[in-house]
C-alpha cells in the first residue's frame, strides 16, 4: 500500500516534469516572437540574445504598415475566415445530418467519395480552380477564397460521426410534435451539436486563417491580401524584415487565441463527446 502511494507520487512528478517541458518547448518560440517584435532589427542577432522585451513595438508596427497595408490584411483575413467558418459550418452540419440520419440512394458511395477528396493534395486542385475562378471573373474577390473550400470533407465527416449519436427517437419525437425536416435540423440537431460545432469552428477558422498557397494565387491585388500573403511580402530576396514579421505574427495569433479561449469549454467537450456512453 505504502509503496504504491510512493510510486503514484513519482509517476505524477514525472508526468508534470514531462508536461512542463513540452509546455516550455511550445511557449519559448512564442515568447521569443513577442520579444523580437519589440526590439529593433539591429538587435535581432546580438549576442547574448535579448531575453526581455524592448520598447520598439510601435516603431516596428509603423514600419510594417508602411511596407504592407497590414491593418487591411487583418480585415481581409477576418472577413474571409469568419464568413468561411460560418458558411462551412452550415454546409458541413447539413451534409453531416443527411449522411447520419437519412436513407437515400447511393448514400454510402457518395460519402466515401467525399472522404476520398481528403487525400487530394491542394497542389492538384489549384490549377483547375484558378482557371475556373478566372473564367467566372472572381479573381481578387473574397468569394474566390471562401466558396471553393466551403463544403469541407473533414467537416462533413466530423459532423456525420457526431450526429450519428443523436438518438433516432429524439428526431422521431420531434416529427410527431409537428416539426418539419428542416426544423429537425435547426431546432434539434444543431443545438445538441454545439460542442462538435465549436470544435469544427476552430478547425475551420484556423485552416482559413493560415491558408497561404491558394489565396496567394487568386488574390493578386495588394488591397485583397490576407495576413499570410502580407507576411510573405516582408520576406525579400536580399533581406528579411524580421522585426516587421514578428510584429505581424504577434498580431496574427490574437484572433486564434481569443477564439480558442472563448470556445475551449465546448471544444474540449466536443473532443470527448461520444467517447463514453452518456
Amino acid at each position, binding site marked *: 500500500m505504502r509503496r504504491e502511494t510512493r510510486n503514484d507520487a513519482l509517476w505524477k512528478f514525472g508526468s508534470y516534469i514531462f508536461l512542463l517541458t513540452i509546455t516550455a518547448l511550445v511557449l519559448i518560440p512564442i515568447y521569443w516572437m513577442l520579444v523580437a517584435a519589440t526590439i529593433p532589427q539591429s538587435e535581432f542577432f546580438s549576442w547574448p540574445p535579448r531575453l526581455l522585451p524592448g520598447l520598439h513595438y510601435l516603431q516596428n508596427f509603423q514600419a510594417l504598415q508602411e511596407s504592407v497595408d497590414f491593418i487591411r490584411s487583418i480585415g481581409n483575413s477576418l472577413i474571409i475566415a469568419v464568413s468561411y467558418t460560418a458558411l462551412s459550418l452550415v454546409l458541413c452540419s447539413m451534409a453531416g445530418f443527411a449522411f447520419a440520419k437519412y436513407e437515400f440512394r447511393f448514400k454510402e458511395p457518395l460519402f466515401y467519395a467525399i472522404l476520398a477528396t481528403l487525400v487530394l493534395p491542394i497542389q492538384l486542385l489549384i490549377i483547375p480552380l484558378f482557371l475556373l475562378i478566372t473564367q467566372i471573373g472572381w479573381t481578387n474577390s473574397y468569394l474566390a477564397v471562401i466558396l471553393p473550400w466551403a463544403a469541407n470533407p473533414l467537416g462533413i465527416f466530423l459532423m456525420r460521426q457526431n450526429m450519428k449519436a443523436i438518438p433516432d*427517437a429524439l428526431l422521431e419525437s420531434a416529427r410527431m410534435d409537428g*416539426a*418539419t425536416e428542416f426544423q429537425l435540423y435547426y431546432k434539434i440537431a444543431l*443545438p445538441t451539436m454545439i460542442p462538435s460545432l465549436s470544435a469544427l469552428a476552430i478547425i475551420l477558422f484556423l485552416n482559413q486563417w493560415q491558408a497561404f498557397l491558394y489565396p496567394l494565387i487568386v488574390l493578386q491585388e495588394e488591397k485583397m491580401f490576407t495576413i499570410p500573403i502580407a507576411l510573405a511580402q516582408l520576406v525579400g530576396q536580399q533581406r528579411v524584415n524580421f522585426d516587421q514579421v514578428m510584429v505581424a505574427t504577434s498580431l496574427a495569433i490574437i484572433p486564434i487565441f481569443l477564439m480558442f479561449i472563448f470556445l475551449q469549454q465546448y471544444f474540449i467537450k466536443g473532443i470527448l463527446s461520444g467517447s463514453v456512453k452518456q
Partner: protein
Amino acid sequence: MATIDITKLRKEFGDEGEQIVAVEDLDLTIEDGEFMVFVGPSGCGKTTTLRCVAGLEDVSSGSIEFDGVDVTDQRARERNVAMVFQNYALYPHMTVRKNIGFPLRLSTKQSSDEIDERVEEIATLLGIESLLDDKPKELSGGQQQRVALGRAIIRDPEVFLMDEPLSNLDAKLRSVMRTELQELQQELDVTTAYVTHDQVEAMAMGDRIAILNEGRLQQVGDANEVYRSPTNEFVAGFIGSPSINLVTAEVDGDTLVGPGNFEYVLDDVSWVDGRSRVRVGVRPEDMHLVEDGAGSMPSEVTVVEHMGNENFLYARMGEVDLTARVPSKMRPPEGSRVRFDFDEEDLYLFDVDTQESVKTKTGETDVGYEQYVHNSV
C-alpha cells in the same frame, strides 16, 4: 378522439430477396377512447404496428383510418397523434417548460403567453410544476416520464401512442406510474395504443389486449377473455404468470395419459372426440396438492420459491417441468414426491398440430357481488 381502423396492415423490412415480414395482414379496430394494449414477445411486430399508426414507418400494404379518414399516406406531423417513447426522447437542450410547449410552438399559432399558460396547466396536472425550469438531465426517471407525457398531452391529440413507456423505471415506480397513466387516460378519454412486452402490465392496464406473435395478431380481448379463453396455445402460454403447464397426452377412452404417469379421467369425453393425442394445459394457480393415492400428476418437487403470500412449487413429472402456485402454508421439502390435481373446468386442451384451442376454462366467471356492495358507506 378517434376510432382507429387498421385493415390488412402489412409491413416488410429489408431488400427484395431477404425480406422480413414484421407485421402480417393485421386487422384491428381500436374504439374511440379505448385503451388498447399490444403485447407479445420481442420481434412480434407490436412496436412496428404502433410506428405504422404513428406515421413513422411507411406501410407495405393495407390501410390505417382515423374516424374513417384514411391516414395511411399522411406524415406523422399531419396525423394529430402524440407518442411517448421508451427512452422519453426529451430534447436535452431545452428546459422542461420548452420541452412541453414544443409541440404547441410548432403546430399552432398561439402566443407565447397562451402556450406558457397551457404548459403550466399540464405541469400542474402531472405534478411537475416545480421542475419547469430544469433541464431533462437534472430529472429522475419518473420525472422525465411525466415530462414526456406532458409533451404528449399538451395539444389534445386524437390518438395517444405509448411505446413501452414504463420499462425504464424501477418496479415500484412502474406500478405507481401504471396507475397514474390509467387515471390520466380515463380523464382525458383519448384513444390510446400502448405497447409492452410485460403481460402483467397489459392485463392491468388495457381495456382490451391485442396479443401478437411473429407479426400476426393472435387474439384481441379483455384481460379476462385472453386469460380464460385463449384462442391458441401461444396466447395461453404468454398470458399468465407463471406460465401455464403444458403436456402432450394420449387419449385412451375417457382418460388422458401423459409422461411421468400423468393420468386424468374426463367427465365430459366429447372434448376429445375423434382425437388420439391432445395438448393439455393447466394454470399453476389451478393446481393443488392432494393426499397420497389421489391426483393425476405425480411429481417430484425440485425448487420451492417462497413469495410470502404464496409459494411457487417447481416440480418434475417425468420429463416435464411443472409449476404450481400454492398457499404459503404448503411447503413440501425439495426432493419430496407429491401429487397435484386440478378441476376439469380449469383444464385447457389444444390441438396437437394447429395448436388451436379445443377447450378453455368453463367455470363461472362471476359469482355475483351484490351482497358485498354497501351503498350506505
